[in-house]
């Protein structure tokens, strides 16, 4: 293993005369707690350690994604723009990155271009310098307006190609997508984004070189997750086979459902013969802090997953499966679950194998249920399925089966136009309503409603992982005379006589 990989690295060095430096992108403040803590790390939890993260030598630092916006506002009562600002104040050594979920600013329907453009602009103003853009359909028209704004402002643009283990998503598919976004936008980085951790070592050995060869000087990033326990090896092999940078998290928020560990990746990449410009001691300090933070909040740390190849099967995702079971049970047809699961596989492929990320699992499942319950497949077509086929969510990456397309068009609701409606600009109306507010607040009120935004609480940078009782005892220990000690605090009085 080690010898083989070293030989490959040495052979490349001999061939090019250049020892490659592999950069690490930090996902601790974004992806890691999204995977392990349901995106519940609060802004004040990030601030005490952000300068250490800044010192650690990452190539880029992820600050937030749209899930972070949702969780921040809906569950933490915090302003996500404020988080970006506060992190940008403290992290200036590496570009701060935001992950942008297509044009789905709010909910899972496309939003008009003007609000998406303003969003990117405001993120830049608040401190984002690297926009990592993804579209589950690989429908680049959806994201073109935002990308053009980002480029105009001088920010870096990273395009995430979402890895999908499905028919048609072969290496050539990804090469095609990569070339298209480079030609269309001139992006800085292509990120192979394996959110489900289903990229195998074998596939990495073909897909990464194929992308590397196709994208010229554009940087190539690998973003995998550790659900099968194979993430670290996949990431190392990706570096050997041509990736320039790896998305990692600082252990103990690495592994499990999260990203490979930054500390281990740095050590192992160096052992393979790469240069890695991160400061291991800074990473360890960040790791110590995160361990204490997890303990204080009673949140889990990342525990390496046991290998389970079920993850590689194109099965229905866990959360969506739970929903489906509940729905079938409510309809009194829970006994049809196996047939529905099998039908989901067929429908998914017939519909062009969309990435099984929201909202597509629900759309595919709705059609599968109808197909199982009715004598003829596609005799009943849910509205969302017709909208999907008609391109309401964007152009489809792979064509829908011709026969199925005919059935969907014929049997779907006549009320749904075959041409997606034009999305009219929304900013004029928003400015009329919220013109007296800041653009950030206007966007947030549009996304989440007035009630949620009224409830936001400003961040106070007073958080510490030091336990007060530990500090108290340490303080007592430092006192010269302990004959009489009297401490008074709200709800507490402590007296001690020596």
């Amino acid at each position, binding site marked *: 293993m080690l*010898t083989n990989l070293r030989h490959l690295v040495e052979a490349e060095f001999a061939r090019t005369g250049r020892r490659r430096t592999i950069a690490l992108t930090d996902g601790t403040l974004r992806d890691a707690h999204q995977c392990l803590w349901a995106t519940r790390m609060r802004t004040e939890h990030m601030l005490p350690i952000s300068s250490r993260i800044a010192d650690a030598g990452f190539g880029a630092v992820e600050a937030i994604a749209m899930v972070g916006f949702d969780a921040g506002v809906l569950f933490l009562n915090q302003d996500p723009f404020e988080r970006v600002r506060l992190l940008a104040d403290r992290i200036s050594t590496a570009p701060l990155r935001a992950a942008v979920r297509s044009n789905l600013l709010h909910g899972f329907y496309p939003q008009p271009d003007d609000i998406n453009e303003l969003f990117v602009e405001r993120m830049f103003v608040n401190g984002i310098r690297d926009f990592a853009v993804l579209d589950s359909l690989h429908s680049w028209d959806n994201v073109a307006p935002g990308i053009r704004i980002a480029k105009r402002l001088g920010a870096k643009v990273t395009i995430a190609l979402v890895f999908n283990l499905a028919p048609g998503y072969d290496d050539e598919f990804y090469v095609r997508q990569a070339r298209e976004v480079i030609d269309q936008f001139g992006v800085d980085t292509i990120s192979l984004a394996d959110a489900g951790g289903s990229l195998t070592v074998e596939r990495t050995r073909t897909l990464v070189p194929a992308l590397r060869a196709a994208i010229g000087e554009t940087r190539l990033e690998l973003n995998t997750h550790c659900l099968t326990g194979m993430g670290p090896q996949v990431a190392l092999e990706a570096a050997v086979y041509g990736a320039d940078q790896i998305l990692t998290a600082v252990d103990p928020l690495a592994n499990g459902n999260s990203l490979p560990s930054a500390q281990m990746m740095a*050590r*192992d990449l160096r052992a393979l013969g790469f240069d890695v410009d991160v400061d291991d001691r800074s990473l360890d300090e960040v790791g110590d802090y995160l361990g204490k933070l997890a303990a204080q909040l009673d949140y889990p740390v990342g525990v390496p997953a046991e290998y389970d190849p079920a993850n590689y099967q194109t099965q229905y995702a866990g959360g969506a499966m739970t929903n489906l079971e509940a729905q079938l049970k409510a309809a009194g047809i829970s006994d049809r679950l196996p047939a529905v699961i099998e039908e989901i596989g067929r429908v998914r492929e017939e519909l062009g194998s969309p990435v099984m990320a929201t909202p597509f699992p629900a759309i595919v499942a709705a059609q599968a249920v109808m197909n199982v319950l009715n004598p003829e497949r596609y005799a009943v077509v849910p509205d969302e399925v017709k909208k999907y086929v008609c391109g309401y969510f964007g152009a489809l990456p792979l064509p829908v089966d011709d026969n199925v397309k005919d059935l969907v068009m014929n049997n779907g609701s006549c009320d749904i136009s075959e041409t997606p409606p034009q999305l009219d600009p929304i900013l004029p109306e928003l400015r009329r309503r919220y013109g007296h507010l800041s653009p950030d607040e206007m966007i947030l009120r549009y996304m989440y409603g007035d009630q949620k935004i009224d409830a936001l609480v400003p961040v106070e940078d007073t958080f510490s992982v030091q336990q007060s009782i530990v500090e108290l005892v340490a303080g007592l220990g430092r006192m010269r005379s302990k004959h009489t000690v009297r401490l008074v605090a709200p709800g507490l009085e402590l007296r001690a006589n020596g």
Partner: protein
Amino acid sequence: MSNHQITFTDTSLTDGQAAVWAGALDNRMVLAPAAALSSSGLAAVEVLSPAVLDECLARDEHPLQRVELAHRHYGPVPLRATVNLLTGHGRPGADVLGPTAIDGWLTALAAAGLRQVVLLDPLLDLVRLKAALESATTAGLTAIAALPYTADDGVSDETYAERAASLIAAGAHRVMLRDESGVLTPDRARTLVPALVSALGDTPLDLHTRCHTALGTVVALEAGRLGVRGIDTALPSVANGASLPSLPSLIRVLRRDDVQGLPDLDALLSADAILAGIADQEGLPAATPWPFDLATYVHQLPGEVAADVRSVLRERGRWADLHEFAAECAAVRREMGSPPMVPPFARAIAEQAMCHFGGEQRYETLRPVLRRLLQGVYGTVNGDQRVDLQARVGSVLTSECDSPTIEADLAADEDVLLAWIAGVTVATVPRRVDVQPYEALTPYESLTRGLLERAGRYATLTVSAPGLRIHLQQEG
């Protein structure tokens, strides 16, 4: 998946508990999962290993009684032991267990109820192995010869195949590819396993691998697909990490591949629930997988040793220097002639490397096992040893036993034999005692028992918790 039948041997009671619980599974605990484990369709259950032998003696438990008890409680499932022909205890003459000692020990094990034995000679001395394999066969045991695997040392598949063939010629009934360091990869398995299967012909190939690099389960599945017939596994409570692949996890995967004739998952999970209960009650650590890490391929430390090193480096705040330690470990191993990283060499090499890593001048001191290795006491290693170190320690001549008296005693007296095998004095050999299966207590029973045991220390003792109040007061 090929159509040969794959069988599984459970090593929870030996290597699993040694790697995860630091060897805490005592003779009472061995009996606790007996009913569930013996009815699960396993090919064998391993009950004794060199590490367990030491653990038993440290607890004042009789190792042969462990086998006898298991024989009574585990019904028809064959019991297995692993016996290493080389020891680390340093008793003159017993560094290599000679034919008389091995013959006596295997006979005693068979009499205690053992049916299978894995015979490990780390240096693959075929003369020694042949004698041991013959003794095992004579004692009525299935003789499994271990073929130690090490990574990245230039040993080709062909060489492994030749070694495997020589083990059959020496009398092995089965050959076990033994990867105690968990460094076999799926890539290597794809060439190595077919080469071994081809060399072995009708003789079954077994696999013992570990999960240090998180690849153990993948390797086991791949090896099974490629023709390995017997796979060593552990129950989830003591699987993964420095231990072996979890059998329930393997079964779940194999079931999806429609593999038939698998062990009974429910019975295995029942057995595991008992082990989990013991862990909970005794405060033993939970088994967790380790993440993939290239350093393992450098230091190549086996199970328990890797677990210990991991703890030490973390305690010293030097986890970030793991590769530095691994490189030193590899250097020491190389300077010792590159012996396989199995007992008794692996721990000694790790300890020597840790001395150097901790700041001691290189080889300022020398671990006793390494001294004897350099002196040639264990036999010949494949690689070149450092000449200056060899000169420093000199060489000694070895013989199996120091005197005919000892040889005669070994055959005649079980205590003398056990003391010789384990490297202890005859006086310290434990007696057989009455052993009842481990009794699982509820938390309340455990608490009350603990309080009552300590009641003499207190006049009054009160425990309060939501919904619970216990008050003990001394009378008089």
